[in-house]
């Protein structure tokens, strides 16, 4: 019994101590709240590493407005409750901005806290709903699904010339969001949905799903899964001798998937938001630096973290001070060009909802590499 009390007091003392630690005078604190374990570990680790790379570069070049960035990262375990706690902790610790998370569910759980505190939150999530809830502190680092899917639907109609499509998606907020966004777009273009197949996050055995896709006899299959699941699915469907077009969005054509799926990834094609293989000098440059530092190939989440950090730097420098309110004001509607800020990697515009707009690409896996076959303009010209 005494132990209960004692441990409790210890706990409070330790908490108080950890909360009391103030940021150093000449540094600006940015707290990363990222999925380092759980279902989002791959995406989160890439996001964190990308951001870390940018932080190191910025600090080496003298920081932002003369202040070094103190970048602290808390793991969310891909759990909304933990994400909330971590964002709250970041806010309490006086973070100038919160970086992350990447998965949309945890973003939804935590964005109110950043909103309440008026702290900018720069996230990697793509689910359409996030920027529709009037949260003024949220900024994306990649295309909204609602913007990406029409581009892909056009691709199905014009390039693949499919009249029916089987849709395979992962049953989490990312996959469901993509599925909910693409199906109406396909139907709008007169394309039939031949099969609508949900799979589990972390699923290992895709044999049944592959068999189902094959027997659906659609003209093409749309695969919207996380990286590892994409690779497993590709292997499973190739084992079934499937020979129709396999189309995906960003993840399916990512480096990790190609590495894991090996030959099974060959011929997969689709739309890519961000890619180190895109014919953009900045991306390739980033890809090299990332590879050199972390010894593996970055996926699109690495680019998100990296370019997001440069977006922050650019907007702060534009306002000329570390003022969150001014930041929020300046960031909405900000247009950042590569010629001014090389670290942004690709010309980008943030609108009033925090959505980002930029060019995107069509790609195909050829010879074990992602090859860009076309470039699509931004949704709205800027």
């Amino acid at each position: 019994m005494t132990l209960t009390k004692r441990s409790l007091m210890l706990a409070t003392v330790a908490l108080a101590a950890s909360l009391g630690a103030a940021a150093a005078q000449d540094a600006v604190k940015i707290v990363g709240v990222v999925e380092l374990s759980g279902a989002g570990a791959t995406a989160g680790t890439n996001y964190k590493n990308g951001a870390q790379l940018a932080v190191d570069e910025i600090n080496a070049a003298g920081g932002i407005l003369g202040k070094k960035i103190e970048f602290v990262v808390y793991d969310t375990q891909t759990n909304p409750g933990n994400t909330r706690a971590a964002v709250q902790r970041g806010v309490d610790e006086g973070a100038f901005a919160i970086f992350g998370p990447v998965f949309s569910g945890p973003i939804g759980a935590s964005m109110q806290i950043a909103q309440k505190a008026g702290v900018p939150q720069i996230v990697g999530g793509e689910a359409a709903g996030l920027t529709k809830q009037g949260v003024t502190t949220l900024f994306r680092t990649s295309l909204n699904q609602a913007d990406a899917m029409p581009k892909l639907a056009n691709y199905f109609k014009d390039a693949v010339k499919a009249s029916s499509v089987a849709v395979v998606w992962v049953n989490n907020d990312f996959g469901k969001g993509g599925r909910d966004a693409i199906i109406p777009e396909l139907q709008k273009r007169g394309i039939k949905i031949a099969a609508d197949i949900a799979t589990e996050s972390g699923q290992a055995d895709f044999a049944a799903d592959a068999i189902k896709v094959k027997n659906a006899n659609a003209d093409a299959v749309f695969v919207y899964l996380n990286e590892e699941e994409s690779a497993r699915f590709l292997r499973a469907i190739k084992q079934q001798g499937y020979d129709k077009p396999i189309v995906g969005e960003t993840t399916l054509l990512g480096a990790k998937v190609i590495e894991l799926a090996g030959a099974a990834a060959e011929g997969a094609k689709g739309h890519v938001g961000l890619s180190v293989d895109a014919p953009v000098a900045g991306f390739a440059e980033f890809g090299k630096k990332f590879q050199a530092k972390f010894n593996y190939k970055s996926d699109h989440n690495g680019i998100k973290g990296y370019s997001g950090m440069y977006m922050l730097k650019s907007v702060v420098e534009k306002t000329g001070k570390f003022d969150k309110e001014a930041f929020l004001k300046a960031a909405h509607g900000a247009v950042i060009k590569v010629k001014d800020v090389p670290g942004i990697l690709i010309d980008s515009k943030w609108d009033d909802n925090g959505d980002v707009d930029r060019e995107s690409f069509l790609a195909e896996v050829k010879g074990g590499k992602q090859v860009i076959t076309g470039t699509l303009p931004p949704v709205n010209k800027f």
Partner: protein
Amino acid sequence: MTPPSPLSRLDLNLLVLLLGAAILWFVPAGMKSYGIYVISFWLVMSIAAMGLNLTLGYAGLKSLAQAAFLGIGAYTTALMTAKGGIAGPVWSWPLAFLASGALTFLAGILLGFPALRVKFHYLAFVTLAFATLMFLIFRNEQWLTGGVYGFPNIPRPTLFGVKLLNDLAFFRFLLVVTLALSVAMWWLLRSPWGRAFMALRENPLRAASLGVNLRSYTLLAFAIGAGYGGFAGALYAPMVEFIDPAPFAISASFVLLLTVVVGGQGYFLGPFLGAAFSYVLPEMLRVTGGYYLLVYAALVLALLLVSPQGLLGLVEKLRERRRVKAAQAMRDASKVMLEARP
């Protein structure tokens, strides 16, 4: 000099409980939101663990569904209190709280029926199946639960016309509810029911031969334990203000089970200690970076190897050893005196 029985120790436990609540009322005053959030989270999970402690620790029924009950309570409360909720604004939370408890109580009875037929670890698998099904329902039935997108904007309760928006106010409200639920549990355990639950765990055969209705008490142990899970859920939802299926998955039920065992199953204060271990410690271990789950698991394993009865079991063991040592010293001393005599 034998150690006190778990039931006779209860009176002392109540004292600790009241004292602890009094201290906790003031402790977070200087804390920031994060600290208050962590302590609030600890209280909520303590309630859920308290329920499981009744089912598992006192009545000996292995359940892997406590997080599912937490989820049922959380979604019920979310549905009833969020915009367009069923009840009116002032009464909405208290009603939702009662409804969450009642619904999980009924679910507990339902789940208790297999418990009457099934023995040992099989029961754990039946509850596992139930918990999996509940998780899938939370996730798949988007029209009801918001599915994978989650359920946003769950309001904080209103008390005496004041909305508990402030974290400290909400924490104190939480503390009062926790205290009330703990005292109710305390009363239950010291009543003849508590004795019957323990009899159920220690020796169901003998209990039956003494007229203890195994069926009623088994169902009750399940249902009340589940009800506490529901109550905890009714607090969890407004605390987090957003819920999605993840915190109610199977792994969360596992962690709750670990919580009860680590704290000391069948000890009244075990759930509080266990929840501190499972939910507060990891927050403190964040400094270890990505390794804290590893550290946590290693600590649990080490603890179980040293003391399968959990932390409070360890405390009792140490105290017992000291007692034996003292008695031995006394005997030695008297022996010396005897021998010293000519």
